[in-house]
């Protein structure tokens, strides 16, 4: 791994250069909320800590995405695929969200690969950024994620005093740094140590310690436990926890058709919605809310691990912060670990 330095005042000029060559997607603020959006000017970028409401998975797996158009004009059938991706730089991704890309990759890059996701993924260079503070809902450390680790990024920045320590982590990252080398300087002594010290400080800031060992097996024995029904009593069955989750990846495919023209698109779905597993017959194997809520936790904490050998939660804390009725996955984990069978 290669390591460089970037002076703080050079970050925006660098991003401005990148913006000329790539579509630059970066954190922007709207009414005090953070979103990752394409920016036209680097002045729009919100630097610093803070968690976006909608996770950056949106960039690779948009909430609504057109798959193809069709036309049946004149009795024939014309299909036109709408597969397109511009070379992009996704800037300012925090370690938990970096891990979430690995979770999504396991799903979308397995054979047969999802071409829409793959194309975006291939054409995007990811610039990660270390956290400088831990939010009260964060618990990424439960999954072995460190708030200063760049795994999953092509290039990773960690703020250390007046500079960013730059870690060049992949061939894509190497190419990017080489191309814009005039912005970077050589690593100096003490910076790597300062980053390690930051790691220590941050790990002391987690408000709740969460342990997940043995959880998939434990959950396996609790499918019929009354706990799920109790927990679901206050759940609203809304789409918040799934839509803000960086690893949720369920989608639905539908058409919009006007006359002889139409398009087929896919859009995010949520396992908490009443019609999520509704069959054409009218039967729904998860007709009760508790079954749907249980599915969410089983998927996050067991199925994903069993199927892809990677945990389905990254501990970003978004669902914890945004659930309107305080269903807190950290508490669910602790409760489940203590339940008898």
């Amino acid at each position, binding site marked *: 791994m290669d390591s460089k330095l970037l002076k703080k005042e050079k970050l925006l000029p660098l991003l401005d250069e990148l913006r000329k060559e790539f579509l630059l997607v970066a954190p922007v603020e709207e009414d005090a909320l953070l979103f990752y959006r394409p920016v036209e000017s680097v002045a729009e970028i919100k630097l610093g800590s803070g968690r976006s409401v909608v996770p950056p998975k949106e960039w690779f797996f948009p909430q609504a995405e057109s798959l193809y158009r069709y036309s049946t004009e004149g009795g024939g059938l014309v299909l036109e695929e709408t597969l397109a991706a511009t070379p992009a730089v996704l800037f300012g991704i925090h370690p938990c969200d970096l891990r979430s890309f690995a979770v999504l990759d396991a799903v979308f890059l397995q054979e047969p690969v999802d071409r829409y996701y793959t194309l975006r993924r291939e054409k995007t260079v990811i610039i990660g950024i270390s956290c400088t503070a831990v939010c009260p809902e964060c618990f990424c450390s439960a999954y072995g994620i460190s708030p200063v680790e760049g795994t999953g990024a092509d290039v990773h920045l960690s703020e250390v005093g007046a500079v960013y320590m730059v870690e060049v982590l992949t061939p894509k990252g190497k190419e990017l740094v080489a191309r814009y080398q005039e912005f970077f300087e050589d690593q100096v002594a003490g910076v790597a140590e300062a980053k390690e010290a930051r790691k220590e400080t941050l790990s002391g800031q987690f408000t709740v310690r969460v342990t997940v060992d043995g959880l998939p097996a434990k959950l396996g024995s609790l499918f019929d436990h009354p706990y799920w029904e109790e927990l679901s*009593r206050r759940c609203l069955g809304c789409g918040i926890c799934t839509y803000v989750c960086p690893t949720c990846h369920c989608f639905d495919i539908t058409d919009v058709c006007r006359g002889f023209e139409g398009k087929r698109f896919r*859009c995010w779905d949520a396992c908490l919605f009443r019609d999520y597993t509704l069959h054409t017959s009218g039967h729904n194997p998860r007709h009760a809310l508790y079954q749907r809520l249980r599915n969410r936790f089983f998927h996050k904490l067991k199925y994903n691990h069993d199927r892809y050998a990677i945990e389905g939660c990254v501990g970003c804390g978004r669902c914890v912060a945004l659930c309107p009725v305080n269903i807190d996955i950290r508490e669910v984990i602790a409760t489940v670990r203590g339940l008898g069978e």
Partner: protein
Amino acid sequence: MKELTESLRQEASRLLREGVEVFIGYAAGSLQASARPFFATRPEEAAELVFNPFCVHNLVKYLVRFPDKRTAVVVKGCDGGAVSRLAEERHLDREKITVVGVPCGGMLERERVLAQLPPATRIEAVEERGNTYVLHTARGEYPFEKKANLAAKCLVCVRNNPVGVDLLLGKEAMPVADPERDPLEGVKAVEALPAGEKAAFWDRVFGRCLRCYACREVCPACSCTQCAFEQAVPGWQQGAMWVEKAKNLPDSYHYHLIRAFHVAGRCTGCAECERVCPVRIPLMLLNQKLAKEIEALFGGAPAGACGPLCAYAPDDPDQFA
């Protein structure tokens, strides 16, 4: 607030012993400065109930989930109206429900509290001292003056003492409304915008709607058993739907306008839709605007518990449609 919590626990325990099957109230939440809906089914569980200025949730909608059970529900002044409305619309059997009213001195805006409390400080007790809530913590007392820290709806509230309840706990609450503040301030500000800016404002806020439907799920006026936005039809028949399943701006406008019109005249102003919204869409602006128009159009008309929009008279001079 200790006495109120105490009498709440006592009454809940008594009701659960006397045949109430589910008592819906609040318990402490897992996050700092939070509470959560709580369902007690056994008298012992009443010990978990609390009431404090973090009990923002309107619990009334949960009643719809227990049509066959004897229930009791805790309501604040702004929540209570939803019970009679839902009963009037025959979504609830009022006979089966014990409505427990709690006088309310206002709810603290959680974000403001968090901004002022040191991180990870556990709140041990909440004391209401006139126009101030004092949060007692291991690191000392933190006073929160109501005028500066209450939720927006509370600063204009005149319903601090619930009416139409079966049981009223605690002492009468002092009104918290700030007489200087116009309840329709926000609505008027948007009304005053030039058309272009008004459109830009709604484009911006609706543009970030996730269509997670939390605002619908929480709303006691959104009581349809089959929602217009949730008709499960196969993909190729989606054209028959009111809105596309995909998130896009025109359909989000469509969703919001239909939602606002469906709850018009039935919204009781609890502001839960706005509270739950993960992207802070100011839904109350729409609800208040419609309430204002209804007041202007039918303000003087006699109306039942159901409000002027569902009052019916055979000699009504206007056609129904």
